[in-house]
């Protein structure tokens, strides 16, 4: 068995893993990326639509184009890349970690490393997670799987499609399938508003007159071997109103009901998971509850914009470098807590240092909202937001000037972020 020794091992070679690893390589660390698939790039490779990179590259790229820019960057570094290798375990060895990978061709690979970066991305919620009653025929799959089948393998999952959930992946697939000659009969959303962005509602549904059934549920699935129809039922005051039910005859159901960070491996390594994000709790340095294990990208919290993934991962890489070089700022960390109308804020702690960036998600839909950041009793930031909605991540930077001259010490001191 071969053992490799590194300063840091990055698990996952998607947008997050690549950006983080490149940053660490450029600061002189010896780093490996371990990726399960045959190529780097992650989820981006199957997202052939455009809309990536507006912030980072100031142009609209498709997923594969964005990925290739980073893959080329990786090729010009001294990073070691292990492809077709799945990480199955992270063992704490006191002085660092031993990461176990498994590759079909090489067998078991061991990596001894000081630091580990979790960058495994997310996976889709499936039918088990949402529970639609009825039979269990074939023809039910997640929107992301359908995206992969059609865009990478050229396989069309069906002819007459109903989409459950109005997440962006489902909307994008509605257009993709229509452009492939399928008929998309409707998108059924339990909430009173769509969870995807407006641009996708317009360009993926309205362009093709695909109905969006808000406040509706799929109440039954019919079909013996293959899906034959679904029953769609409106909600009245939150309860199904059976009298308004109608059937849609379809052979395929795509589930687009959200994503969850992929944290099996993290849990096994005793990393503490935040139930609001489904990802790890991280401190001001993107370090998890396990010293030396860091996290960034969709494994930490689900992002809608890849540019933020890259940005966050570069920041994470910088801290891993400081950790390995024993130069992490050793100051008191304060909790960051979500206040009114905020689902979560990442990172979960802060430290007094210039230019700290935070990412958060709103629980409400509102125009002309206000972001408020309080430190104890004191309001230190007020920021106008033109529009907030749960599907669009919000960010803000905490500058040094925002702080009162001296920070009171005490464990009850917290930064509270709210939206009004």
């Amino acid at each position: 068995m071969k053992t490799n020794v590194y300063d840091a091992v990055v698990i996952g070679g998607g947008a997050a893993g690549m950006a983080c690893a490149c940053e660490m390589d450029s600061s002189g660390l010896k780093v490996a990326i371990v990726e399960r698939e045959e190529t780097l790039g992650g989820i981006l490779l199957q997202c052939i639509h455009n809309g990536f990179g507006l912030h980072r590259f100031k142009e609209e790229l498709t997923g594969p184009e964005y990925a290739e820019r980073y893959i080329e960057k990786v090729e010009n570094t001294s990073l070691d890349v292990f492809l077709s290798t799945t990480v199955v375990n992270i063992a704490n060895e006191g002085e660092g970690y031993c990461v176990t990978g498994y590759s079909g061709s090489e067998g078991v690979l061991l990596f001894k490393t000081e630091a580990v970066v979790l960058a495994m991305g997310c996976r889709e919620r499936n039918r088990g997670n949402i529970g639609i009653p009825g039979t269990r025929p074939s023809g039910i799959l997640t929107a992301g799987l359908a995206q992969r089948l059609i865009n990478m393998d050229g396989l069309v999952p069906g002819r007459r499609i109903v989409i459950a959930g109005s997440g962006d992946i489902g909307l994008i697939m509605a257009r993709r399938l229509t452009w492939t000659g399928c008929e998309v009969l409707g998108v059924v959303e339990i909430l009173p508003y769509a969870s995807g962005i407006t641009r996708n509602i317009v360009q993926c549904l309205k362009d093709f007159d695909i109905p969006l059934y808000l406040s509706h549920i799929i109440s039954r699935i019919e079909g013996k071997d293959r899906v034959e129809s679904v029953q769609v039922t409106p909600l009245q005051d939150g309860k199904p109103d059976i009298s308004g039910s109608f059937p849609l005859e379809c052979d395929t159901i795509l589930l687009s009901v959200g994503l969850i960070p992929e944290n099996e491996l993290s849990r096994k390594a005793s990393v503490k998971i935040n139930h609001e994000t489904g990802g790890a709790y991280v401190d001001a340095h993107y370090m998890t509850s396990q010293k030396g294990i860091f996290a960034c990208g969709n494994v930490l919290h689900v992002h809608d914009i890849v540019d933020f993934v890259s940005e966050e991962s570069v920041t994470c890489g910088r801290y891993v470098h400081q950790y390995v070089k024993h130069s992490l700022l050793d100051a008191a960390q304060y909790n960051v807590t979500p206040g009114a109308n905020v689902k979560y804020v990442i990172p979960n702690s802060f430290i007094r240092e210039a230019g700290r960036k935070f990412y958060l998600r709103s629980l409400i839909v509102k125009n002309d909202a206000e972001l408020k950041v309080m430190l104890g009793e004191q309001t230190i930031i007020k920021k106008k937001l033109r529009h907030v909605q749960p599907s669009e991540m919000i960010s803000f930077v905490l500058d040094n000037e925002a702080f009162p001259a001296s920070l009171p010490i005490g464990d009850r001191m917290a930064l509270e972020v709210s939206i009004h």
Partner: protein
Amino acid sequence: MSDKNEIICISCPIGCRLQVTKLSEEAVKVEGNRCNRGEAYGREETLRPKRTVTACVRTNSRKIAYAPVKTDKPLLKEYINELLKILYTLDIEVPLRRGEILIHNFKGLDVDVVFTRTVPG
């Protein structure tokens, strides 16, 4: 001539509901916009709606069976289906490079179709 149409502006996340009245083949009246971008969007979307088209074409690569492509500029909506039909009949020989042109100046509309992924031979 006057057809009032409601469209949603997608130039920013607010998503104003615009009422657009077509006055002639070249002129529209836009209401409901909060800013100038909304007016421009309402005009273009009513007179010359365009979309960037993305799709996949079959290749003879054993590893990457389908190569993604896009139009380098938004294409007038009425030509989208014609373009897609052509793309689905193609068989592409690899290698090919990201940025390489697959279809040059489609129908004289000043729109190219380019590959968005590099596929080695």
